[in-house]
Protein backbone atom coordinates (compact mmCIF):
# COMPACT_ATOMS: atom_id res chain seq x y z
CA UNK A 1 0.00 0.00 0.00
CA UNK A 2 1.33 3.39 -0.94
CA UNK A 3 1.84 6.26 1.47
CA UNK A 4 -0.94 8.09 -0.34
CA UNK A 5 -3.31 5.21 0.20
CA UNK A 6 -2.38 5.02 3.89
CA UNK A 7 -2.83 8.77 4.19
CA UNK A 8 -6.21 8.48 2.51
CA UNK A 9 -7.29 5.89 5.10
CA UNK A 10 -6.06 8.12 7.90
CA UNK A 11 -8.03 11.04 6.40
CA UNK A 12 -11.11 8.85 6.31
CA UNK A 13 -10.57 8.00 9.98
CA UNK A 14 -10.26 11.70 10.83
CA UNK A 15 -13.43 12.35 8.88
CA UNK A 16 -15.20 9.46 10.67
CA UNK A 17 -14.13 10.87 14.03
CA UNK A 18 -15.72 14.18 13.08
CA UNK A 19 -18.87 12.32 11.99
CA UNK A 20 -18.93 10.37 15.28
CA UNK A 21 -18.53 13.62 17.20
CA UNK A 22 -21.45 15.05 15.26
CA UNK A 23 -23.61 11.97 15.96
CA UNK A 24 -22.88 12.09 19.68
CA UNK A 25 -23.55 15.82 19.75
CA UNK A 26 -26.86 15.38 17.91
CA UNK A 27 -27.89 12.48 20.15
CA UNK A 28 -26.99 14.48 23.25
CA UNK A 29 -29.02 17.46 22.05
CA UNK A 30 -32.04 15.30 21.29
CA UNK A 31 -31.81 13.63 24.68
CA UNK A 32 -31.36 16.97 26.43
CA UNK A 33 -34.51 18.28 24.77
CA UNK A 34 -36.43 15.19 25.85
CA UNK A 35 -35.00 15.46 29.36
CA UNK A 36 -36.44 18.96 29.70
CA UNK A 37 -39.85 17.60 28.73
CA UNK A 38 -39.58 14.70 31.20
CA UNK A 39 -38.58 17.13 33.95
CA UNK A 40 -41.52 19.38 33.12
CA UNK A 41 -43.94 16.42 33.32
CA UNK A 42 -42.38 15.26 36.60
CA UNK A 43 -42.61 18.75 38.09
CA UNK A 44 -46.35 18.78 37.36
CA UNK A 45 -46.76 15.26 38.79
CA UNK A 46 -44.79 16.26 41.91
CA UNK A 47 -46.97 19.35 42.40
CA UNK A 48 -50.10 17.19 42.26
CA UNK A 49 -48.54 14.60 44.57
CA UNK A 50 -47.74 17.38 47.05
CA UNK A 51 -51.31 18.63 46.82
CA UNK A 52 -52.62 15.12 47.41
CA UNK A 53 -50.27 14.75 50.38
CA UNK A 54 -51.58 18.02 51.84
CA UNK A 55 -55.15 16.82 51.42
CA UNK A 56 -54.30 13.56 53.19
CA UNK A 57 -52.76 15.57 56.05
CA UNK A 58 -55.91 17.69 56.28
CA UNK A 59 -58.08 14.57 56.29
CA UNK A 60 -55.92 13.05 59.02
CA UNK A 61 -56.31 16.26 61.02
CA UNK A 62 -60.10 16.11 60.52
CA UNK A 63 -60.00 12.49 61.75
CA UNK A 64 -57.95 13.48 64.79
CA UNK A 65 -60.21 16.40 65.73
CA UNK A 66 -63.38 14.37 65.25
CA UNK A 67 -61.77 11.48 67.16
CA UNK A 68 -60.98 13.71 70.16
CA UNK A 69 -64.50 15.19 70.10
CA UNK A 70 -66.04 11.71 69.92
CA UNK A 71 -63.78 10.52 72.76
CA UNK A 72 -65.04 13.37 74.94
CA UNK A 73 -68.64 12.45 74.07
CA UNK A 74 -68.15 8.74 74.64
CA UNK A 75 -66.41 9.44 77.95
CA UNK A 76 -69.36 11.63 78.93
CA UNK A 77 -71.67 8.68 78.26
CA UNK A 78 -69.25 6.35 80.03
CA UNK A 79 -69.30 8.67 83.07
CA UNK A 80 -73.11 8.33 83.09
CA UNK A 81 -72.60 4.66 83.76
CA UNK A 82 -71.09 5.57 87.08
CA UNK A 83 -74.15 7.58 88.07
CA UNK A 84 -77.29 6.21 89.80
Amino acid at each position, binding site marked *: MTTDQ*TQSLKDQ*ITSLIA*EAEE*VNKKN*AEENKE*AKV*KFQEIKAR*ADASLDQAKNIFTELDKADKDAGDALDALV*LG*MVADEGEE
Partner: protein
Amino acid sequence: MFNKGPKRGAVEGLIYDIIKLNKFMSERSQIPEEAKVTIIELPDAPVEAPQQPEEVPTDSTESLNVENKGFFAKLGERAKEVGNWAYETINKIPGVNKIVGKVEIAYHSYWMNRHEEKARAITGKISGTDAQIEAVEQSRAEIAYALHELGKEGADIPNMQSVQEKMKSMDDQLEGLNLEKTKLNEKLEKRNEKMQGYVEKRDAVVDRLVGQYQEKLSPLEIEIEKINDCKDEFELSEAVAELRHETQNERLNNIEKKKDVLEKALLASGLSEEQVYDDPSIQSLYKMIDEGREQIKKEQEILAVSRKYYESRLKETESKADVYRKKKAKFNNIKEGKPEPVEMPEAVDHESEPIIEPEDQEDGLEANVEEEPKYRLDTFVSEYNKFIKEEYKTDVDPQEEIVLVNFMKETGVKESQEMEFKRFKKILGTYYKKIKLPATSIKKFDSRAEAFYKEKINPEIK
Protein backbone atom coordinates in the same frame (compact mmCIF):
# COMPACT_ATOMS: atom_id res chain seq x y z
CA MET B 1 -110.59 1.75 99.98
CA PHE B 2 -112.59 2.99 102.99
CA ASN B 3 -116.24 2.53 104.10
CA LYS B 4 -116.53 -0.63 102.08
CA GLY B 5 -117.31 -2.85 105.14
CA PRO B 6 -120.72 -3.74 106.58
CA LYS B 7 -122.97 -0.78 107.60
CA ARG B 8 -122.11 0.65 110.98
CA GLY B 9 -123.09 3.68 113.00
CA ALA B 10 -121.29 6.97 112.23
CA VAL B 11 -118.88 6.87 115.21
CA GLU B 12 -118.31 3.15 114.79
CA GLY B 13 -117.60 3.74 111.10
CA LEU B 14 -115.15 6.53 111.88
CA ILE B 15 -113.25 4.39 114.40
CA TYR B 16 -113.12 1.62 111.82
CA ASP B 17 -111.69 4.06 109.27
CA ILE B 18 -109.09 5.31 111.73
CA ILE B 19 -107.97 1.74 112.44
CA LYS B 20 -107.64 1.18 108.66
CA LEU B 21 -105.82 4.46 108.36
CA ASN B 22 -103.33 3.44 111.02
CA LYS B 23 -102.80 0.16 109.19
CA PHE B 24 -102.24 2.03 105.95
CA MET B 25 -99.82 4.41 107.66
CA SER B 26 -97.78 1.53 108.99
CA GLU B 27 -97.63 0.01 105.52
CA ARG B 28 -96.54 3.33 104.02
CA SER B 29 -92.92 2.67 104.84
CA GLN B 30 -92.96 -0.21 102.34
CA ILE B 31 -92.31 0.67 98.69
CA PRO B 32 -95.25 -0.31 96.46
CA GLU B 33 -94.48 -2.88 93.75
CA GLU B 34 -94.93 -0.48 90.83
CA ALA B 35 -92.48 1.93 92.40
CA LYS B 36 -89.73 -0.61 92.78
CA VAL B 37 -86.69 0.11 90.61
CA THR B 38 -85.14 -2.63 88.59
CA ILE B 39 -81.39 -2.21 88.62
CA ILE B 40 -80.03 -3.37 85.29
CA GLU B 41 -76.59 -4.75 85.68
CA LEU B 42 -73.89 -3.89 83.20
CA PRO B 43 -73.39 -6.98 81.07
CA ASP B 44 -70.13 -8.87 81.54
CA ALA B 45 -69.56 -8.62 77.83
CA PRO B 46 -71.50 -5.63 76.51
CA VAL B 47 -74.21 -6.26 73.93
CA GLU B 48 -72.90 -6.66 70.38
CA ALA B 49 -69.36 -6.18 71.58
CA PRO B 50 -67.00 -7.04 68.72
CA GLN B 51 -64.75 -10.10 68.88
CA GLN B 52 -61.93 -10.18 71.34
CA PRO B 53 -58.68 -8.81 70.00
CA GLU B 54 -55.77 -11.16 69.47
CA GLU B 55 -53.62 -8.86 71.55
CA VAL B 56 -55.43 -6.80 74.16
CA PRO B 57 -53.60 -3.52 74.60
CA THR B 58 -52.30 -2.95 78.10
CA ASP B 59 -53.58 0.61 78.07
CA SER B 60 -57.06 0.76 76.63
CA THR B 61 -56.97 4.56 76.62
CA GLU B 62 -53.85 4.83 74.48
CA SER B 63 -55.78 6.53 71.67
CA LEU B 64 -57.09 9.30 73.98
CA ASN B 65 -55.56 12.74 74.10
CA VAL B 66 -54.15 14.09 77.39
CA GLU B 67 -57.36 15.88 78.36
CA ASN B 68 -59.58 12.85 77.75
CA LYS B 69 -57.07 10.55 79.44
CA GLY B 70 -57.25 12.78 82.52
CA PHE B 71 -61.05 12.60 82.45
CA PHE B 72 -60.95 8.82 82.11
CA ALA B 73 -58.61 8.51 85.10
CA LYS B 74 -61.17 10.23 87.33
CA LEU B 75 -64.01 7.85 86.42
CA GLY B 76 -65.43 5.37 88.90
CA GLU B 77 -64.83 1.62 88.61
CA ARG B 78 -68.17 0.87 86.95
CA ALA B 79 -67.68 3.62 84.35
CA LYS B 80 -64.10 2.50 83.75
CA GLU B 81 -65.34 -1.01 82.99
CA VAL B 82 -67.53 0.34 80.18
CA GLY B 83 -64.78 2.73 79.06
CA ASN B 84 -62.30 -0.14 78.81
CA TRP B 85 -64.70 -2.13 76.65
CA ALA B 86 -65.23 0.86 74.33
CA TYR B 87 -61.54 1.67 73.93
CA GLU B 88 -60.33 -1.90 73.68
CA THR B 89 -62.76 -2.20 70.76
CA ILE B 90 -61.38 0.96 69.17
CA ASN B 91 -57.76 -0.01 69.75
CA LYS B 92 -58.19 -3.20 67.76
CA ILE B 93 -58.66 -1.11 64.63
CA PRO B 94 -55.51 -0.13 62.66
CA GLY B 95 -54.41 3.49 63.12
CA VAL B 96 -55.73 4.99 59.92
CA ASN B 97 -59.21 3.55 60.48
CA LYS B 98 -59.41 4.21 64.23
CA ILE B 99 -61.83 7.03 63.60
CA VAL B 100 -64.28 4.51 62.12
CA GLY B 101 -64.15 2.61 65.42
CA LYS B 102 -64.79 5.81 67.35
CA VAL B 103 -67.80 6.64 65.19
CA GLU B 104 -69.04 3.05 65.58
CA ILE B 105 -68.72 3.25 69.37
CA ALA B 106 -70.41 6.67 69.51
CA TYR B 107 -73.33 5.24 67.48
CA HIS B 108 -73.42 1.94 69.37
CA SER B 109 -76.92 0.93 70.46
CA TYR B 110 -75.49 0.20 73.93
CA TRP B 111 -75.75 3.87 74.97
CA MET B 112 -79.33 4.30 73.82
CA ASN B 113 -80.34 1.03 75.47
CA ARG B 114 -78.74 2.08 78.74
CA HIS B 115 -80.39 5.47 78.55
CA GLU B 116 -83.79 3.88 77.95
CA GLU B 117 -83.30 1.47 80.84
CA LYS B 118 -82.41 4.28 83.20
CA ALA B 119 -85.23 6.49 81.95
CA ARG B 120 -87.64 3.57 82.41
CA ALA B 121 -86.45 3.12 85.98
CA ILE B 122 -87.12 6.78 86.79
CA THR B 123 -90.53 6.61 85.11
CA GLY B 124 -91.31 3.58 87.25
CA LYS B 125 -90.42 5.51 90.38
CA ILE B 126 -92.65 8.40 89.28
CA SER B 127 -95.60 6.01 88.74
CA GLY B 128 -95.03 4.53 92.20
CA THR B 129 -94.97 8.00 93.79
CA ASP B 130 -98.16 8.91 91.88
CA ALA B 131 -99.89 5.83 93.27
CA GLN B 132 -98.83 6.77 96.78
CA ILE B 133 -99.98 10.37 96.36
CA GLU B 134 -103.35 9.20 95.06
CA ALA B 135 -103.79 6.76 97.97
CA VAL B 136 -102.91 9.32 100.67
CA GLU B 137 -105.05 12.02 99.01
CA GLN B 138 -108.02 9.67 98.85
CA SER B 139 -107.63 8.62 102.50
CA ARG B 140 -107.28 12.20 103.62
CA ALA B 141 -110.37 13.21 101.70
CA GLU B 142 -112.40 10.37 103.16
CA ILE B 143 -111.30 11.14 106.73
CA ALA B 144 -112.04 14.81 106.24
CA TYR B 145 -115.47 13.86 104.93
CA ALA B 146 -116.10 11.56 107.89
CA LEU B 147 -115.08 14.25 110.38
CA HIS B 148 -117.34 16.71 108.60
CA GLU B 149 -120.28 14.30 108.78
CA LEU B 150 -119.63 13.53 112.47
CA GLY B 151 -119.40 17.24 113.15
CA LYS B 152 -122.82 17.75 111.55
CA GLU B 153 -124.31 15.02 113.75
CA GLY B 154 -122.71 16.68 116.81
CA ALA B 155 -121.19 13.36 117.74
CA ASP B 156 -118.37 13.15 120.23
CA ILE B 157 -115.24 11.97 118.41
CA PRO B 158 -112.93 9.80 120.45
CA ASN B 159 -109.16 10.41 120.07
CA MET B 160 -109.83 13.60 118.14
CA GLN B 161 -106.29 14.78 118.83
CA SER B 162 -104.84 11.58 117.41
CA VAL B 163 -106.99 11.90 114.27
CA GLN B 164 -105.85 15.49 113.79
CA GLU B 165 -102.22 14.39 114.19
CA LYS B 166 -102.74 11.71 111.56
CA MET B 167 -104.26 14.30 109.20
CA LYS B 168 -101.25 16.53 109.75
CA SER B 169 -98.94 13.60 109.16
CA MET B 170 -100.74 12.84 105.88
CA ASP B 171 -100.33 16.46 104.79
CA ASP B 172 -96.60 16.22 105.51
CA GLN B 173 -96.42 13.00 103.60
CA LEU B 174 -98.19 14.46 100.58
CA GLU B 175 -95.79 17.36 100.62
CA GLY B 176 -92.86 14.93 100.74
CA LEU B 177 -94.27 12.76 97.97
CA ASN B 178 -94.96 15.75 95.70
CA LEU B 179 -91.45 17.01 96.28
CA GLU B 180 -90.07 13.56 95.46
CA LYS B 181 -92.17 13.45 92.28
CA THR B 182 -90.94 16.88 91.22
CA LYS B 183 -87.34 15.78 91.77
CA LEU B 184 -87.88 12.58 89.78
CA ASN B 185 -89.47 14.52 86.91
CA GLU B 186 -86.55 16.93 86.91
CA LYS B 187 -84.15 13.99 86.90
CA LEU B 188 -85.96 12.39 83.95
CA GLU B 189 -85.99 15.66 82.08
CA LYS B 190 -82.30 16.19 82.78
CA ARG B 191 -81.48 12.67 81.63
CA ASN B 192 -83.44 13.10 78.38
CA GLU B 193 -81.82 16.46 77.77
CA LYS B 194 -78.39 14.98 78.45
CA MET B 195 -78.95 12.11 76.04
CA GLN B 196 -80.40 14.44 73.44
CA GLY B 197 -77.35 16.63 73.91
CA TYR B 198 -75.03 13.67 73.32
CA VAL B 199 -76.94 12.63 70.21
CA GLU B 200 -76.90 16.16 68.79
CA LYS B 201 -73.20 16.65 69.51
CA ARG B 202 -72.34 13.22 68.12
CA ASP B 203 -74.31 13.88 64.90
CA ALA B 204 -72.72 17.32 64.61
CA VAL B 205 -69.19 15.89 64.95
CA VAL B 206 -69.81 13.14 62.39
CA ASP B 207 -71.70 15.45 60.00
CA ARG B 208 -68.81 17.89 60.15
CA LEU B 209 -66.34 15.08 59.50
CA VAL B 210 -68.34 13.78 56.53
CA GLY B 211 -68.58 17.35 55.25
CA GLN B 212 -64.81 17.74 55.49
CA TYR B 213 -64.36 14.47 53.61
CA GLN B 214 -66.75 15.70 50.93
CA GLU B 215 -64.88 18.97 50.69
CA LYS B 216 -61.41 17.40 50.52
CA LEU B 217 -62.09 14.34 48.39
CA SER B 218 -63.25 16.30 45.30
CA PRO B 219 -59.95 18.21 44.91
CA LEU B 220 -58.11 14.98 45.70
CA GLU B 221 -59.82 13.26 42.75
CA ILE B 222 -58.73 16.19 40.55
CA GLU B 223 -55.11 15.83 41.69
CA ILE B 224 -55.22 12.06 41.06
CA GLU B 225 -56.56 12.74 37.57
CA LYS B 226 -53.69 15.18 36.99
CA ILE B 227 -51.15 12.56 38.13
CA ASN B 228 -52.79 10.09 35.74
CA ASP B 229 -52.49 12.62 32.93
CA CYS B 230 -48.80 13.08 33.74
CA LYS B 231 -48.34 9.33 33.64
CA ASP B 232 -50.06 9.14 30.22
CA GLU B 233 -47.92 12.00 28.98
CA PHE B 234 -44.79 10.31 30.32
CA GLU B 235 -45.72 7.06 28.59
CA LEU B 236 -46.16 8.86 25.27
CA SER B 237 -42.78 10.58 25.69
CA GLU B 238 -41.27 7.25 26.72
CA ALA B 239 -42.59 5.55 23.57
CA VAL B 240 -41.15 8.40 21.48
CA ALA B 241 -37.86 8.12 23.41
CA GLU B 242 -37.64 4.42 22.51
CA LEU B 243 -37.95 5.35 18.85
CA ARG B 244 -35.35 8.08 19.32
CA HIS B 245 -32.94 5.70 21.02
CA GLU B 246 -33.43 3.22 18.20
CA THR B 247 -32.54 5.91 15.66
CA GLN B 248 -29.57 7.04 17.75
CA ASN B 249 -28.31 3.48 18.03
CA GLU B 250 -28.60 3.13 14.27
CA ARG B 251 -26.42 6.22 13.83
CA LEU B 252 -23.79 4.74 16.14
CA ASN B 253 -24.03 1.35 14.40
CA ASN B 254 -23.41 3.12 11.12
CA ILE B 255 -20.25 4.77 12.52
CA GLU B 256 -19.13 1.41 13.87
CA LYS B 257 -19.60 -0.25 10.47
CA LYS B 258 -17.52 2.43 8.79
CA LYS B 259 -14.86 2.02 11.49
CA ASP B 260 -14.79 -1.76 10.88
CA VAL B 261 -14.26 -1.23 7.15
CA LEU B 262 -11.39 1.19 7.83
CA GLU B 263 -9.79 -1.19 10.33
CA LYS B 264 -9.89 -4.00 7.77
CA ALA B 265 -8.40 -1.74 5.11
CA LEU B 266 -5.60 -0.73 7.46
CA LEU B 267 -4.87 -4.36 8.31
CA ALA B 268 -4.92 -5.20 4.58
CA SER B 269 -2.42 -2.40 3.99
CA GLY B 270 0.12 -4.39 5.98
CA LEU B 271 -0.20 -2.71 9.36
CA SER B 272 -0.09 -5.05 12.32
CA GLU B 273 -3.12 -5.53 14.59
CA GLU B 274 -1.24 -3.68 17.31
CA GLN B 275 -0.56 -0.78 14.96
CA VAL B 276 -4.23 -0.57 13.95
CA TYR B 277 -5.98 -1.08 17.27
CA ASP B 278 -3.53 0.96 19.32
CA ASP B 279 -3.76 3.84 16.90
CA PRO B 280 -5.01 6.90 18.87
CA SER B 281 -7.56 7.78 16.15
CA ILE B 282 -9.05 4.28 16.15
CA GLN B 283 -9.01 4.30 19.96
CA SER B 284 -10.82 7.63 19.88
CA LEU B 285 -13.53 6.15 17.63
CA TYR B 286 -14.02 3.20 19.99
CA LYS B 287 -14.34 5.62 22.89
CA MET B 288 -16.87 7.82 21.12
CA ILE B 289 -19.04 4.89 20.09
CA ASP B 290 -18.95 3.49 23.64
CA GLU B 291 -19.75 6.88 25.14
CA GLY B 292 -22.65 7.34 22.73
CA ARG B 293 -24.11 3.97 23.66
CA GLU B 294 -23.51 4.60 27.35
CA GLN B 295 -25.43 7.86 27.08
CA ILE B 296 -28.44 6.05 25.57
CA LYS B 297 -28.23 3.32 28.18
CA LYS B 298 -28.22 5.89 30.97
CA GLU B 299 -31.30 7.57 29.57
CA GLN B 300 -33.05 4.23 29.29
CA GLU B 301 -32.25 3.58 32.94
CA ILE B 302 -33.60 6.99 33.93
CA LEU B 303 -36.79 6.23 31.99
CA ALA B 304 -37.19 2.91 33.80
CA VAL B 305 -36.79 4.66 37.18
CA SER B 306 -39.27 7.35 36.12
CA ARG B 307 -41.79 4.72 35.03
CA LYS B 308 -41.54 3.06 38.44
CA TYR B 309 -41.94 6.46 40.07
CA TYR B 310 -45.21 7.21 38.27
CA GLU B 311 -46.59 3.72 38.76
CA SER B 312 -45.76 3.48 42.46
CA ARG B 313 -46.77 7.04 43.38
CA LEU B 314 -50.04 6.76 41.50
CA LYS B 315 -50.81 3.39 43.05
CA GLU B 316 -49.90 4.67 46.52
CA THR B 317 -52.04 7.81 46.13
CA GLU B 318 -54.98 5.83 44.71
CA SER B 319 -54.75 3.30 47.52
CA LYS B 320 -54.61 6.01 50.19
CA ALA B 321 -57.52 7.88 48.60
CA ASP B 322 -59.47 4.63 48.57
CA VAL B 323 -59.10 4.33 52.34
CA TYR B 324 -60.72 7.76 52.76
CA ARG B 325 -63.40 7.11 50.12
CA LYS B 326 -64.39 3.94 51.97
CA LYS B 327 -64.21 5.62 55.36
CA LYS B 328 -66.64 8.30 54.16
CA ALA B 329 -69.07 5.63 52.94
CA LYS B 330 -68.65 3.81 56.25
CA PHE B 331 -69.47 6.92 58.32
CA ASN B 332 -72.70 7.39 56.39
CA ASN B 333 -73.61 3.74 56.81
CA ILE B 334 -72.96 3.81 60.57
CA LYS B 335 -75.12 6.94 60.88
CA GLU B 336 -77.90 5.29 58.94
CA GLY B 337 -77.58 2.17 61.08
CA LYS B 338 -76.44 -0.06 58.21
CA PRO B 339 -74.09 -2.62 59.70
CA GLU B 340 -70.76 -3.37 58.05
CA PRO B 341 -71.63 -2.67 54.44
CA VAL B 342 -68.09 -1.79 53.47
CA GLU B 343 -65.00 -3.89 54.01
CA MET B 344 -62.35 -1.56 55.35
CA PRO B 345 -59.06 -1.91 53.54
CA GLU B 346 -55.78 -2.15 55.36
CA ALA B 347 -53.44 0.71 54.61
CA VAL B 348 -50.84 -0.70 52.25
CA ASP B 349 -47.20 0.18 52.63
CA HIS B 350 -46.18 0.57 49.02
CA GLU B 351 -42.64 1.55 49.92
CA SER B 352 -41.82 -2.04 50.73
CA GLU B 353 -43.75 -3.48 47.79
CA PRO B 354 -41.67 -4.88 44.99
CA ILE B 355 -42.19 -2.89 41.83
CA ILE B 356 -42.78 -5.08 38.85
CA GLU B 357 -40.63 -4.18 35.93
CA PRO B 358 -42.81 -3.28 32.98
CA GLU B 359 -42.20 -5.66 30.16
CA ASP B 360 -41.17 -4.15 26.91
CA GLN B 361 -44.34 -4.30 24.89
CA GLU B 362 -42.93 -5.48 21.67
CA ASP B 363 -46.14 -7.38 20.91
CA GLY B 364 -44.25 -10.51 20.10
CA LEU B 365 -42.97 -8.95 16.95
CA GLU B 366 -39.39 -8.97 18.19
CA ALA B 367 -39.45 -12.74 17.83
CA ASN B 368 -39.59 -12.31 14.07
CA VAL B 369 -36.13 -13.02 12.80
CA GLU B 370 -36.73 -11.14 9.58
CA GLU B 371 -36.25 -7.42 9.74
CA GLU B 372 -39.49 -5.54 9.88
CA PRO B 373 -40.12 -2.99 7.14
CA LYS B 374 -39.94 0.65 8.13
CA TYR B 375 -42.29 3.37 6.94
CA ARG B 376 -42.47 7.11 7.31
CA LEU B 377 -44.78 8.44 9.99
CA ASP B 378 -47.03 10.23 7.47
CA THR B 379 -47.40 6.97 5.52
CA PHE B 380 -48.40 5.06 8.65
CA VAL B 381 -50.89 7.77 9.60
CA SER B 382 -52.60 8.03 6.21
CA GLU B 383 -52.71 4.23 5.77
CA TYR B 384 -54.04 3.64 9.27
CA ASN B 385 -56.74 6.31 8.87
CA LYS B 386 -57.77 4.78 5.54
CA PHE B 387 -57.82 1.28 7.05
CA ILE B 388 -60.01 2.04 10.07
CA LYS B 389 -62.49 4.02 7.96
CA GLU B 390 -62.81 1.21 5.39
CA GLU B 391 -62.83 -1.57 7.92
CA TYR B 392 -64.90 -0.20 10.79
CA LYS B 393 -66.88 2.52 9.02
CA THR B 394 -69.32 4.11 11.51
CA ASP B 395 -67.72 2.34 14.47
CA VAL B 396 -64.83 4.80 14.51
CA ASP B 397 -64.59 7.50 17.15
CA PRO B 398 -63.81 10.90 15.56
CA GLN B 399 -60.69 11.10 17.76
CA GLU B 400 -59.51 7.74 16.48
CA GLU B 401 -58.75 9.26 13.10
CA ILE B 402 -55.24 10.69 13.41
CA VAL B 403 -54.68 14.35 12.53
CA LEU B 404 -51.05 14.30 11.48
CA VAL B 405 -50.28 17.89 12.54
CA ASN B 406 -51.70 17.30 16.01
CA PHE B 407 -49.97 13.94 16.30
CA MET B 408 -46.58 15.47 15.40
CA LYS B 409 -47.16 18.33 17.85
CA GLU B 410 -48.00 16.00 20.72
CA THR B 411 -45.27 13.45 20.04
CA GLY B 412 -42.49 15.60 18.60
CA VAL B 413 -41.99 12.96 15.90
CA LYS B 414 -41.38 14.31 12.40
CA GLU B 415 -43.51 13.20 9.44
CA SER B 416 -40.41 11.91 7.67
CA GLN B 417 -39.34 9.79 10.66
CA GLU B 418 -39.14 6.16 9.63
CA MET B 419 -40.10 3.42 12.07
CA GLU B 420 -41.23 -0.14 12.35
CA PHE B 421 -44.89 -0.91 12.97
CA LYS B 422 -44.28 -1.89 16.61
CA ARG B 423 -42.94 1.61 17.36
CA PHE B 424 -45.82 3.27 15.54
CA LYS B 425 -48.29 1.12 17.41
CA LYS B 426 -46.81 1.90 20.81
CA ILE B 427 -46.63 5.62 20.15
CA LEU B 428 -50.19 5.66 18.77
CA GLY B 429 -51.52 3.70 21.76
CA THR B 430 -49.97 6.13 24.25
CA TYR B 431 -51.08 9.08 22.09
CA TYR B 432 -54.69 7.89 22.23
CA LYS B 433 -54.45 7.71 26.04
CA LYS B 434 -52.91 11.16 26.18
CA ILE B 435 -55.69 12.74 24.07
CA LYS B 436 -58.24 10.83 26.18
CA LEU B 437 -59.77 8.69 23.49
CA PRO B 438 -62.89 7.08 25.04
CA ALA B 439 -62.14 3.89 26.95
CA THR B 440 -64.35 1.83 24.62
CA SER B 441 -62.22 2.86 21.64
CA ILE B 442 -58.98 2.34 23.61
CA LYS B 443 -60.12 -1.24 24.22
CA LYS B 444 -60.58 -1.78 20.47
CA PHE B 445 -57.21 -0.26 19.59
CA ASP B 446 -55.04 -3.32 20.11
CA SER B 447 -57.07 -5.63 17.88
CA ARG B 448 -57.51 -2.92 15.24
CA ALA B 449 -53.77 -2.19 15.16
CA GLU B 450 -53.01 -5.90 14.83
CA ALA B 451 -55.56 -6.23 12.03
CA PHE B 452 -53.92 -3.25 10.30
CA TYR B 453 -50.53 -4.95 10.65
CA LYS B 454 -51.78 -8.20 9.17
CA GLU B 455 -53.72 -6.55 6.34
CA LYS B 456 -51.42 -3.76 5.30
CA ILE B 457 -47.92 -4.17 6.72
CA ASN B 458 -47.19 -7.87 6.68
CA PRO B 459 -49.90 -9.72 4.76
CA GLU B 460 -47.70 -12.83 4.51
CA ILE B 461 -48.19 -13.69 8.19
CA LYS B 462 -51.94 -13.99 7.77
